[in-house]
């Protein structure tokens, strides 16, 4: 049964739609337009240059580097992060007395911002006072400085990002694990299947939609939500060792003031999001995203 009212639904929708049109749709279309121009820093001079920004982008070694770094970073966050979270979630899912308490703690890192995660791990890796370099210096006499060492800087940001996501991933995995019918597992146990077999044959397939969902959310996180983490730590360095696509976009658009070139990068990111969205509609039921 529906309410009958000619205008009310439009009125109810209008605030959302107006904001979406003005602040989301219009700027998105404008991004396409701007990507065809070379724009002066003050925006007062612009030359139409067709697809040059895109062509340049694909020849720009720094951009290609940013793509490689972003993919490696995302792979690290997704693979290490999800493996670790799933292991912890499986452990925490055991129905043992006292385990409920642990579960409440795992959600805490959800409150962390990427910037804070970055700061905390920048301390852990700090060349002078950080526990990790000092421990290694004590044990092996090595000296580590992430400001000069590209690999270490990459591990710093990847670890920080992975850690920041742990709480979120564990909570979602736990929810998924808890929805597995107990009878299924019990039946399998009676048939003589040990825990590893049960995990491989029953648990893993049943939580695979959740795994897929988390792969998507973590990928989006790694590409779009990590700017603050970089800004407070490596700022893309040393060299360009940690320059993710989002950081390159900021640098070109808001430090070097090249609006057209940055817009072309936005469009490339849009293509990425579109691909992910298509993937999602193809292979998963629609879900609400928790950003």
């Amino acid at each position: 049964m529906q309410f009958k009212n000619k205008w009310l639904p439009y009125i109810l929708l209008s605030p959302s739609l107006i904001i979406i049109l003005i602040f989301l749709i219009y700027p998105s279309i404008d991004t396409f337009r701007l990507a065809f121009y070379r724009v002066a820093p003050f925006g007062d001079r612009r030359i139409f240059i067709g697809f040059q920004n895109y062509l340049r982008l694909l020849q720009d070694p720094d951009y290609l580097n940013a793509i490689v770094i972003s993919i490696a970073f995302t792979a690290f966050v997704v693979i290490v992060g999800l493996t670790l979270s799933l292991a912890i979630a499986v452990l925490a899912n055991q129905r043992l007395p006292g385990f409920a308490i642990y579960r409440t703690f795992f959600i805490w890192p959800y409150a962390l911002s990427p910037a804070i995660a970055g700061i905390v791990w920048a301390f852990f890796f700090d060349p002078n006072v950080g526990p990790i370099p000092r421990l290694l210096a004590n044990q092996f006499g090595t000296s580590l400085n992430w400001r000069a060492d590209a690999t270490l800087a990459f591990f710093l940001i990847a670890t920080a990002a992975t850690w920041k996501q742990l709480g979120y991933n564990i909570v979602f995995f736990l929810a998924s694990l808890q929805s597995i019918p107990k009878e299924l597992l019990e039946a399998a146990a009676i048939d003589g299947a040990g825990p590893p077999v049960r995990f491989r044959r029953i648990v893993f397939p049943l939580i695979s939609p959740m795994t897929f969902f988390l792969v998507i959310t973590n990928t989006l996180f790694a590409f779009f939500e990590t700017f603050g983490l970089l800004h407070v730590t490596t700022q893309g360095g040393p060299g360009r060792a940690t320059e993710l696509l989002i950081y390159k976009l900021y640098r070109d658009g808001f430090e070097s003031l090249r609006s057209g070139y940055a817009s072309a990068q936005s469009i490339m990111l849009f293509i990425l999001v579109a691909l992910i969205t298509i993937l999602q509609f193809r292979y998963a039921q629609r879900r609400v995203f928790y950003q």
Partner: protein
Amino acid sequence: MKRWLLGLALAGMLGVLAGALAQTEITFWHAMSGSRQEVVNNLVEAFNTEFPEYEVNAEFTGSYAETLTKAIAAYRAGSPPTIVQVYEVGTQTMLDSDAIVPVYTLNQGEVDFGSFVQPILKYYSYQGELYSMPFNSSTAMLYYNKDVFREAGLDPNRPPRTFDELYEMGLRIVESGAAKGGVSFGWPAWIFEQMFAYHNQFYANNDNGRSGLATEAFINSDFGVQVLGEWQKWTQDGVLVYGGREYSANDPFLAGDFAMLVQSTSSLGGILRKADFEVGTTFLPRLPGYPSGNSVIGGGSLWVMKGASDEQLEAAWAFLQYLGRIDNTIAWHKGTGYFPATNEAVLTLLNEGWFAGEPNALTAFMQILTGVDTPAARGVLLGNFVQIRDIVGAAIEEAVTQNRDPQEALDKAAQEVNRVLSEYSELFGQ
């Protein structure tokens, strides 16, 4: 009689009130954080007290890049700050912006620009006229840890003067175990620029972009390749420890990880305060066989933006004059380590014996004052300089941390830089 006095007092008060009502407000955006922000705030407050007819509102607006982005946005929205601090790499952008009021047009003879310290004046002048007010000027010099020098059996009062000496002393320090490394740099790409000017080499064509828009960079010249080659050799032998961009090498220097640091003079205050060893400073090391130039000014200057009313321009000019006044520029120097801007201020400092107590503050002065003023030593003006410094910084890092051939790294960088320059001149050409 009493009533008459009362009337006079009232009239006086009204006058003050009217003055207060007619107060001209201007905004000043800057990128000075931490202890420097305090010094800025003190100067602004003192100005506002001394000149009640004006009110300067100072605002810290993030890093240099962030401040410039915001100023441009504000200008386009029709509400620019009256005065904005812009880093030296933003100079060309500001010159070409058509959004500024050149400082020389404000000067009705109140200030003799000739009294400014010459290298500073020349950096911010374009074709003979001063466009922005020098504010936080610095240059690069060599800091060293005298304790480590002693430990390595070196004379703590005989720091290196040439590349070779630096390399040998660095080796000695590393081999003796006095420190893990010999030397590190802050702002590597800027130090690279310094080397060009210091040895009287042009960094770009058209007189470093000062007689017309630069269209070609000379970073991959024999000189550039030689400098980077030296740096690479130092790294391979453990003498040079790459310390990252900007100021990140200061920490390990303070921790005694390496004995020498080539860094901006603006770090002097911080280093002296935090060092638990005896700090020495000296001129930048030289490569023999090249002529003398001068080290280049870095830091930032103050630009007046269009869009201000005549009263506001008057207030802005009053404020800029105030900052250049002997007592204020001295306070600025003492509080931050940046150069005092005028020759009189330097003289005053000399007379009051300031440098006797702070010999390290004198080093950089002697360096820029004893340098040779040549077109190549006046600093580079490039369009898209932010990006160009970034490209050069990455090339240095490739050579130093990833062992890439210096010629190859600089060739690739030069190609990129030239492309960026041509993009800029396409926009601003003719």
